[in-house]
């Protein structure tokens, strides 16, 4: 990490760095500077994680002391059909989220990167959902999608009987849609920033070579946005796997268990059924799965050896 040039570093800084090749290596501040943050991380991330590991081997309802039960919770998890289903659902919802959000936020972000005033005004309006809390967004859409008094009631040609929250497909579609509505602005912002950093010379060169609008997008913009895209996808994956609030408010995991994703299943076990041992086991599993998937994304995408998109400029 320390030897490669970070993409985020601004161009002038790189130039300066190149002017003194083999110069003095940067002296980095001592570990002491990281101590407060490390302590915080230890107290609020590592310590709870260790406690969760311990708790996952116990039976505890919040009353009395946790009772050590060995692998009981884990064996029950392995047999729990809702659990296995919830993992698939989490992955499915995350994948659908990435597939829907990436192209849309890419297009909007690149469009919004333009210098025109109307684009600035429109994108300011478009970024509004970003300011709302997930809870507010979910409550809003729950009301808007009411089958009798919401949008579906007015548009039966599109929604049929409007049973969006009562069918598996409908409920999943609602979750993907609301998630996209809420988060596309954020990812569009990433792409907007990245698109603005693309040097104009590249477009000028492409124009000279006879590339049209599409050609410029395909051969200049897209490759230049590679690192932004990786960042955005990693954020979507991690965010998608830990989605909770929208499910809690929009579907409560229903109909039945059709949208009981892993994070919601954990909540149900721990805070509805007061089975904190099982809840802890699910939480741990979620940590492992999310870590593994993030690592795979990082590896496959080359995020860990991210090349500068400015090479040769």
């Amino acid at each position: 990490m320390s030897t490669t040039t970070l993409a985020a570093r601004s161009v002038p800084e790189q130039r300066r760095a190149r002017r003194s090749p083999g110069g003095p290596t940067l002296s980095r501040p001592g570990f002491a500077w990281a101590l407060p943050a490390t302590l915080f991380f230890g107290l609020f991330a590592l310590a709870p994680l260790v406690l969760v590991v311990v708790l996952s081997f116990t039976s505890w309802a919040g009353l009395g002391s946790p009772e050590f039960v060995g692998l009981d919770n884990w064996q029950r998890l392995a047999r729990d059909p809702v659990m296995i289903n919830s993992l698939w659902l989490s992955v499915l919802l995350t994948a659908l989220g990435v597939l829907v959000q990436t192209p849309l936020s890419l297009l909007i972000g690149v469009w919004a990167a333009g210098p025109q005033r109307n684009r600035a005004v429109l994108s300011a309006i478009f970024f509004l959902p970003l300011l709302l809390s997930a809870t507010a967004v979910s409550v809003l859409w729950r009301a808007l999608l009411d089958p009798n008094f919401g949008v579906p009631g007015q548009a039966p040609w599109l929604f049929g009987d409007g049973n969006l929250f009562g069918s598996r497909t409908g409920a999943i579609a609602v979750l993907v849609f609301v998630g996209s509505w809420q988060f596309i602005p954020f990812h569009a912002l990433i792409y907007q920033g990245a698109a603005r950093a693309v040097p104009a010379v590249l477009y000028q060169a492409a124009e000279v070579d006879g590339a049209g609008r599409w050609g410029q997008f395909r051969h200049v913009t897209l490759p230049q946005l590679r690192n932004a895209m990786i960042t955005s996808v990693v954020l979507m994956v991690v965010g998608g796997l830990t989605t909770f609030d929208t499910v809690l408010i929009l579907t409560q995991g229903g109909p039945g268990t059709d949208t009981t994703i892993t994070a919601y299943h954990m909540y149900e076990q721990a805070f509805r059924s007061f089975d904190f041992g099982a809840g802890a086991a699910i939480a741990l599993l979620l940590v492992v799965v999310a870590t593994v998937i993030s690592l795979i994304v990082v590896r496959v995408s080359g995020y860990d050896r991210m090349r500068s998109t400015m090479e040769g400029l």
Partner: protein
Amino acid sequence: MTVRTRLARVVALGAALALALPLTACGDGDPAAGQDEIRILVYGDATNKVEKQLVDTFNKTSKVKAVLDTIPGADYQTKLQTIINTKQAPDVFFNWGGGSITPFVKADLLLPLDDMIAKDPGLKANFLPSVFNTAVVDGKAYGVPMRGTQPVLLFHNKKVLADAGITPPRTWDDLLTAVKTLKGKGITPIALGGGDQWPTQMWYQYLYDRVAGPELFAKALGGDKGAWESPESRRALELLRQLTDAGAFGTNFDSVKFTDGGSPTLLSSGKAGFELMGSWNYSTHHDANPTFAAEGLGWSAFPSVPGGKGDPRNVVGNTNNFYSVLKKTRHPEAVAEFLKLQYSDEFVQAQLAIGNLPTTTNTEKFLDGATNPDYLKYQFTLVKEAPSFQLSWDQAYPPAATTTIHQAVQQYCNGRLDAAGFIKAMQSLQAG
């Protein structure tokens, strides 16, 4: 090492220590508090007005002072569970009886009230028995009713029924006919907030009670898994299937909720004819549309079913809320005095004034002065004469069972589970 970096280390260490200090400070609590007071923990909502008033009345005469704490809204059970076995535990707390206190009784945290009742028989005799029994666990009383009763009634829109030439159904066949007539007119026969799941559960509770009487559920709750696969159980499921097959709830009921005003609006706007709902439905309509509540809203008891063993006078719902007492309370005498206030005239009048229907024997004489005497009298008579008042299933079982029950009732009703699947799901529940 240069002076500069050493200084940096010292500063950083200092900052880290400063951050860590407040963390070690918590957890001690204040040992001085709680010597001469009893702490009363209640569910935070509009009824707190009455609880506050009674606490004030109590404090006027008592040396040991009562302090009222409230936990707002839906988090109550979760918060209670996490503090009940700690130093912050209250002396007296609000609950729903049944399964909501069974785990605490099993953990030996609650005080049986039998001694208090022996000293003051009024603590039992002054309450309607079908209600009082909800907080009896393993033959011992653990709670005293402290709010209003909430039986489930079959509500209807008077105008819709009159236009269709229907009267409130007394039998199952009446109901099926009414469903057919309303459906023929393009009206959803019965509004159902299936998205909330517990409104769906109300249909099961009544059908099981009408078909088999309260014994079947009592057996199942006691751990007899065979109860769920008995012929009566299958019969009740069959009746419910008749209703869904007849299109009684329409097709999109799982997207409708009671809690966000969806199903009440269906009823009040005349898009639906009936709704099976708890007695709070009246205040829900009263808040949204007072004219409809006063003139358009009708109610009746759940119909009888052919060949059913259950008494048609039985009701289901939330019997009442209860005050239970922690075993480790330092002032049991003061607590007993406080509990006595829960059958006082002052209590009854204060509850009636905010629209709750208390379940004390002296309630009846105050009903004429209430704002909606017809509705309250109907309910009170219904509850008083009911041979059995079945507590809602999700409250009769301990909280651990709620999710499974809710999912099973929803999935059988919308056809995702067949009878065998429903029975299997209910058999997976741990005994209450």
